[in-house]
């Protein structure tokens, strides 16, 4: 894997440099090395020289799609609201995309936040990315000063320790259940195509929670969000969250209190997840961004499971299939509806 990542890094540098040199793109969005070993830095190269900083490794966990609408907009000539867009083609951006990121781009295109023609996508099959929290817990409170990645293993080291672990053990939870590692839209493929992934029980954790009783589920939920500081890193790391004014910030109407009242925090998390319903590709950026280690991905994962089961909908795989909440089926399941006409649920009946 070391070679896989270093080969990919070289290929990205080469392609990005070529794109910038030829003037095909005005900027290239990738990752640069961070100042601490466990975090990488999303990075925009605006000149061929800057592409030397680009890297690719298992800690590139921020979803780059998140940056695209803003980056593209910043490259357009400024205009007043309501003014028509300028004539002629607008500047393009080069970007790296894995499976989930590319699916987010598809959704952004469907929701008019991106124009496909303005992207040059270097597609990379995701080998599964690393969860820094898992590394930290492995280090047991010691500071990690270096990380080496190989095909099947990861080695962390610091003052007075060096630990080796199977890569699988430290992958992010979302990567462990990912079934679509390959980008769905791309202009050029970097690196090899990953074999099809068969995940035995992709929703095992969700089903485990579903099996609990309501009290235990509530206890789990409360504990999960207890330490939330409402910094909105989860929201801001999410490529689906691009409302000009988020419902949590809005004062007219004010759906959610502004502080860390447990109810307000809970409603924030419920609605944040709900707003991703049918759109979330389980990229895991929210969890990776959270400074407090909250596993808020489970909420969106539950919705993802329901969308699949109820509406047979997987977002971002096909640009032509509408997102599940923008359409309906005449025979959509309605077992939960009392007095539903088609099927009678356990609650129903006359």
């Amino acid at each position, binding site marked *: 894997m070391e070679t896989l990542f270093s080969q990919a890094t070289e290929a990205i540098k080469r392609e990005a440099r070529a794109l910038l040199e030829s003037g095909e793109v005005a900027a290239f969005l990738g990752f640069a090395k961070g100042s601490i070993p466990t975090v990488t830095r999303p990075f925009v190269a605006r000149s061929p020289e800057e592409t030397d900083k680009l890297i690719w490794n298992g800690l590139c966990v921020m979803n780059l799609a998140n940056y695209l609408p803003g980056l593209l907009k910043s490259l357009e000539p400024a205009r007043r609201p309501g*003014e028509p867009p300028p004539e002629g083609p607008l500047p393009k951006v080069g970007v790296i995309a894995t499976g989930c990121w590319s699916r987010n781009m598809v959704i952004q295109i469907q929701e*008019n936040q991106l124009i496909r023609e303005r992207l040059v996508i270097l597609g990379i099959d995701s080998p599964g990315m690393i969860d820094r929290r898992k590394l930290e817990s492995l280090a047991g409170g010691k500071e990690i000063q270096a990380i080496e990645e190989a095909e099947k293993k990861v080695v962390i080291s610091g003052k007075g320790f060096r630990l080796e672990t199977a890569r699988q053990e430290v992958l992010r939870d979302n990567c462990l259940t990912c079934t679509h590692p390959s980008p769905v839209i791309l202009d050029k493929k970097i690196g090899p195509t990953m074999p099809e992934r068969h995940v035995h029980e992709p929703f095992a954790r969700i089903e485990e929670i579903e099996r609990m009783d309501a009290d235990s589920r509530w206890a789990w939920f409360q504990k999960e969000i207890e330490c939330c500081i409402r910094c909105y890193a989860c929201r801001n790391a999410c490529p689906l969250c691009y409302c000009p*004014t988020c419902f949590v910030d809005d004062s*007219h109407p004010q759906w959610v209190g502004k502080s860390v009242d447990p109810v307000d925090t809970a409603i924030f998390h419920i609605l944040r997840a709900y707003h991703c319903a049918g759109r979330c590709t389980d990229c895991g950026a929210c969890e990776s961004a959270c400074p407090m280690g909250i596993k808020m991905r489970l909420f969106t994962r539950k919705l993802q499971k329901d969308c699949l089961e109820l509406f047979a909908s997987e977002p971002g795989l096909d640009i032509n299939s509408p997102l599940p*909440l923008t359409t309906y089926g005449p025979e959509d399941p309605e077992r939960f509806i009392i007095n539903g006409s088609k099927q009678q649920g356990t609650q129903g009946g006359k």
Partner: protein
Amino acid sequence: MEDYPPVELDRKGNGEAMSNASDSPKGSVLVVGGGIAGVQAALDLADSGFYVHLIEKSSAIGGRMSQLDKTFPTNDCSACILSPKLVECGRHLNINLMTLSEVMALEGEEGAFTATIRQNPRYVDPAKCIACGTCAEKCPKKVPNEFDLGLGKRKAIYLKYPQAVPLKYAIDPDQCIWLRRPGRCGMCQKVCPSGAINFDDQPRQIHIEVGSVILALGFSPFDPSILDFTGYGRLPNVVTAMEFERLLSPSGPCLGHMERPSDHKEPRRIAWLQCVGSRDINRACHGYCSSVCCMYAIKQAVIAREHTQGPDLSTSIFFMDMRTHGKEFETYYDRARAEGVSFHRCRVHSILPAGHDDNLLLRYVGDDGRIKQEEFDLVVLSVGLEMDKQAAELARRLGVELDPNNFVATGAFRPVSTNRPGVCVCGAAAEPKDIPQSVMEASASALEASRLLAPARWSETQKKEYPEERNVWAEPPRIGVFVCSCGINIASVIDVAAVTDYARTLPGVVFAQNNLFTCSQDTINQMAETIKREGLNRVVVASCTPRTHEPLFQETLRDAGINKFLFEMANIRDQDSWVHQGFPDEATQKAKDLVRMAVAKVQQDEALAYNTVPVVKRALVLGAGVAGMTAALSIADQGIPVVLVERKDRLGGHARKFYRTWQGDLVQGYLAGLCQRVEEHPQIDLHLETTVEKVEGSVGQFETHLSDGSKVLHGTAIIAIGAGSHKPREGRWNYLYGRHPEVHVLLELDKRFIKEDPALKEKNQTVFILCAGSRVPEKPYCSRVCCTHAIDQALHLKELNPNMEIFMLYRDIRTYGEKERLYQKARENGIVFIRYDLDNVPKVWEEQGNIHVEVKDPILDRPVRLHPDMLVLATAVRPKIDADVVSRAFKCSMNSDRFFLEAHMKLRPVDFATDGIFMAGLCHYPKPMDETIAQAKAAAARASIILAQDAIPAESITAVVEQRKCVGCGVCTMVCAYNAIQLDENSSLARVDTAMCKGCGACVAGCRSDAVTLKNIGNEQIMAAIEATMETY
């Protein structure tokens, strides 16, 4: 054919009875019959500038439709979809609703009739009755309820049904104890809180002058008691379909629990017997097909299964031909079969008592020719439709000719006109038909009735004037709360004084008052005074339901110079005192809560604009076939300019290939006259070889770019782009088509008829294959016209050569309505009908230039080989290729078969969901000439409502986008059913077209950014109501 003399064409050959009416006709119309057809006709007329007298013989409008439980093929709740129309009708300023009334005589002529009306006494003063129901509760006299066909009971003082319009009680004079023996009872008079009972009420005779008349006389269900074999009347568990509707209905005698009459148990095995009183010349004397019974029986079977929530209900339908010939019907049939409804193709010859439990034994001949016996718990007779006897008498009285079946006689080219000029007909009185067809005809008759009255438009209608409204924007809320006692309806449960006192303490409330009847005229007047005197700027009324009374109180606000949207109601009667009768404390607390919620919400209400859209008085008609030309002429004749756009280089469309209608009228002569009128009409601007390129704007203000470079401004559009016949050039249904010169599709044979091809006489044998490629998975719909058309062609071939052998290979013969006559005649003329099914489709091949056909005869149970000289294929009518283009340009949807989709299957059959756009003809669904013409007129009528006005009202409670919050994701545009919200081309942000917005709020709930809200039903208002609800807890 002799029974049906072809309609005499006028000198211009267009089939329209031309007027000799005076130059200054009356501006009012008499509509007789308050069923769905009459109501629709009345609304269309009143909305397009004519004063309407609507005469209904019973105590409330609604007709047969109000008795139905669900309607096919959408399973819509009948009352739910009908009710709003009735309420609108009852409230319309320009509809004079006369219930308990009958037309006695009609004198004069078109343009100036005088009608004599007898209005029977109601014995209840409608101005005073508040429909509280106390009278009926106390009335001691119980009688069978005819609304439930006698299955349930009502009192001698009664409301016809819960949603009745007018919502006023009436006394049945034949049953009332007092009226029969004055002084004996009078209980209702004693308990009526508003003194509405008037035992001295007398019949009145009224003369009214009108310009034209519409007969919407409806039908009667066939009474099967004369058919002894059914046991109806003797066997309690044999019911008619109409009775079964009431048994299914939640408002019926068993409250929707589906019980059988004998023991009130839920039946587990139900049989439907089709064609009871239809297609039966021997016993029932009705040769015609009643058109609707197959569908309603399937619907009843499906709904019955839903009621019992289980697959263990057995439902069997015994039929002769399955006639599911309407839009989406075939799919409905397929689904019913898939869901387990069983269908038996046979006529049951007797229903016998099973000898135990009042069960029934059906004896019938099975598919295999053997006699079978089966036991059922309940048998439903799918009774046919017949002309109401009183209605027939009335028609005769008015000098209106009836056909041999006693229906009002019409003609193929004038489907809603009677023989008497100025008297039109619509609905089942002219031929058995379903609701959408009746509604279509109702609109068509409205057009026909008003066409010659156009000069008198708006001459007799009223328009209300209001004082100028005070601008309250900058004022702090000054809320007035009016708490109604509703006699004792509210006050007997709720402490209204306490509620009133409480209201005074609420923030913003400066005035609170308790009234005995807030809706009484004197209280209303006083309310207007109070608003002015106290300087109120917002009003809350705590009384009954806003669904009936909001308009009244809103009107009062306007009368007092306040915007009507600064108003809220607290429903403390229907949803409080009436439903918590034993809990006065809780009900009072709830009333306080409801008042507090209303006050919280009204605080944030804003004055809204009474939106209107100016109307460009021009129509665009797309397609110049019979439908398009008829629609264009219908509008142009009213003096309104029409732009008629046709893709081809000539007029006439599909009809140019037609020989004659099923009634026997030659088409080409008629068509030539129609084309000539179109070409010569000063108001019609014809664009041949032209298509639509782009459509902008919305109702009242469309701007359409045509391919010839012209740009048309128009207020409405009618889409009548027609359809084509499918030509099976390849595939399973090819049958030598295109490979043998004597293999034709139907219209190709018509062409030979038109040319009077002498070779036709020489044919010895002709085979017709019906459903060639129709009703199959790849084309699942039934094309409705082919059976009739093919049979008529066969009859014509027989006319040409009586010795010709003719074989019809069919799956179900669907000569619905009076078209059944042709089927009978074909059988009489020796035409041989051989049924096939999809497992044994006919085989066709060629040997040495000869056509060979083989089909398995189900009766002989062996293959039959035929060697026809000519093979005629009844192929599907298929939508035009460019339907997609039109659909995209006008943003109007199509169904899965790619026919255009109407706004509502039942009640808006010519409207698109998008306002201002209408459809007519085959692009909607296959249909014969008369139905096409009726639909074209209906489309013209609907368009005329808009075109008759300078400006049309638009919804005031519309969505509004806060641009700052919008991100342009487009979710709102996708969930809007009306295309009322679109992304702006420049800003890419959402923008609401208030002219198109209906205020449903789907976009509001869909918007993650809270960028869209609904005026006066905004998120913050709902939150205020929620929080107010919980405040006392």
